[in-house]
């Protein structure tokens, strides 16, 4: 199927009447996913949004329930967002990150109704990356610029139009409802050419990385590798696969609500016990945790690397700590510094 670029606003306007539609929107110097009220709000020119689409499903701050406490008991009212949503213009790396996060929020024992309800009620329309950035390394971590994982429809930019690939039944139903025209053979060929031409120039060699992480927890590499890190947590807040959170109460007298907020393994208080003991005493342990979690623990638990190669942590680190370099150093690490 195909949709002309000039028809996009109209297509979105129709969706807006039925769904809450999120799309990349220009906000100051950033592009961010926002709910849009008009099809003309969308801006697909940026390589990617400042924050990943993760925040639509797992907001930075989210109310879990409200309560009212009396002498007889406590009335607890959960606040689930059941609104039907469409995410338009999500990049393949960010769409794939949600497939990874599904493992966490739907684990072997518990289901997170807040995240999963939003996931179930959302249609994902992705847009492939014709010109990946120099900091993109999706192909090194099992992704690609036109990866379809986590998507219902994928748009391929062929110049004046988007060739629409149907990925799922949900996507098919939406495309049919929008009466998208069939793509001509020439359009299909143009799309195939665009996909072939899109190259991710940056390659990170992760061969043998997991084998090293399986054994190098106590090796001296970790004494060095974190030294530049300020522990600011920016990488964790911008990462599409980071999922750590805190739970706090916001209340006045007997009425209030419980809220969860993003948290970060980069912060000392994150693991601080009530006794004062802290299992991760310094930045060394905290930085090691970040790398271990993404490239070893997540692999052990879910058979997937918890990194989609979006490059946000590289672009936004205040001290230019580059995860690609870190991974290379870890891969080359030795049990002893002098060996």
């Amino acid at each position, binding site marked *: 199927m195909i949709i002309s670029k000039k028809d996009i606003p109209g297509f979105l306007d129709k969706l807006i009447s039925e769904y809450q539609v999120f799309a990349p929107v220009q906000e100051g110097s950033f592009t961010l996913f926002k709910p849009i009220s008009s099809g003309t709000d969308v801006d697909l020119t940026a390589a990617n949004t400042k924050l990943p689409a993760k925040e639509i499903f797992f907001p930075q701050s989210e109310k879990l329930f409200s309560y009212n406490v009396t002498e007889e008991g*406590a009335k607890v009212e959960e606040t689930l967002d059941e609104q039907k949503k469409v995410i338009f213009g999500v990049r393949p790396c960010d769409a794939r990150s949600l497939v990874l996060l599904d493992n966490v929020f739907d*684990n072997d024992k518990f289901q*997170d109704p807040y995240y999963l309800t939003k996931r179930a009620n959302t249609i994902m329309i992705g847009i492939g990356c014709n010109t990946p950035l120099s900091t993109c390394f999706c192909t090194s971590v099992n992704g690609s610029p036109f990866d379809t994982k986590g998507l219902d429809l994928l748009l391929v930019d062929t110049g004046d139009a988007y060739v629409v690939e149907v990925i799922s039944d949900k996507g098919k139903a939406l495309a049919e409802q929008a009466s998208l025209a069939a793509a001509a053979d020439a359009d299909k060929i143009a799309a195939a050419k665009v996909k072939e031409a899109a190259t991710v120039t940056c390659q990170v060699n992760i061969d043998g990385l997991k084998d090293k992480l399986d054994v190098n927890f106590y090796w001296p590499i970790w004494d060095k590798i974190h030294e530049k890190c300020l522990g600011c947590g920016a990488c964790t807040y911008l990462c599409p696969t980071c999922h750590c*959170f805190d*739970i706090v109460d916001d209340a006045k007298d007997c009425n209030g609500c419980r809220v969860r907020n993003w948290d970060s393994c980069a912060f000392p208080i994150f*693991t601080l016990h*009530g006794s004062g003991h802290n299992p991760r005493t310094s930045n060394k342990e905290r930085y090691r945790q970040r790398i271990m979690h993404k490239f070893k623990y997540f692999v*052990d638990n879910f058979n997937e690397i918890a990194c989609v190669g979006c490059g946000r942590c590289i672009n936004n680190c205040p001290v230019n700590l580059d995860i690609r370099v870190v991974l290379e150093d870890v891969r080359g690490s030795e049990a002893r510094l002098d060996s």
Partner: protein
Amino acid sequence: MKNPYLPLPMKLVKNFTETEDKLIHTFTLQFLSEEDEKSFPYMPGQFAELCVFGKGEAPFGMASSPTEPGFLKFSIAKVGVVSTALHLMEEGNMVGVRGPLGNYYPVDELKGKNVVIIGGGFAFTTLRSLATYMLQPEHRGDYGDITVIYGARNPGLLLYKEELAAWDQNPNINLVTTIDSAVDGWNGRVGFIPSVTEEVAPSSENTYAIVCGPPVMIKFTIPVLEKLGFPANRIIMSLENRMKCGIGMCGRCNVGGKYVCKDGPVFTRAQLNELPGEY
């Protein structure tokens, strides 16, 4: 989909000052209905997120045993925002409880075995739950000899003093209590847990050791147990790490790839030997 974040309202019926230093209180919470109680089927070693509405929630192991119906008991030190608020609560107030969470002591695997329970300080809470469970007449026959080695800095810091006195007279359990240094009027042992364990622990043959206590006690007790011939898969420990969600999602209590909240808190020494020491 069951929402694992929603607390069950419970009534605080007793706020009891457990230790002489007044820093540990034992809270008895009553279920508001039979239905509520049925929704909370737990086993010794499990924990719950206990909340003071308006202050927040924190994880605590259940000190009561499932063989004691109608209520839950928690023994809690006053250290942070939630525990301080709890200490100040009046009987009759409402609190919230979310759980039961985590795994539990392997009460089935322990059947037909001797059990030595080793506890230090106020980490005795879930061990009390386990001992109470095993001592229950319908369960007692399932287990061999039960030995409890329990130490505190001084007699005033021992939890559950009345119960300890009763166990002392009970032929179904061999209780050894110890304090760090001698005081007048103390008839029990004097000495640290590791040395007392070395002296009084039963033979490691067909025996499981369940250990819970402060890190320094664990550090010196494990080598003693190993010396006594306990294999790593028969040394069982309960870990504690800072937690929030209790359901393996919020990401802070992991030890290696395992979450203390979801995959623990009960681990064997053999399992922990495979993990980094981040606890």
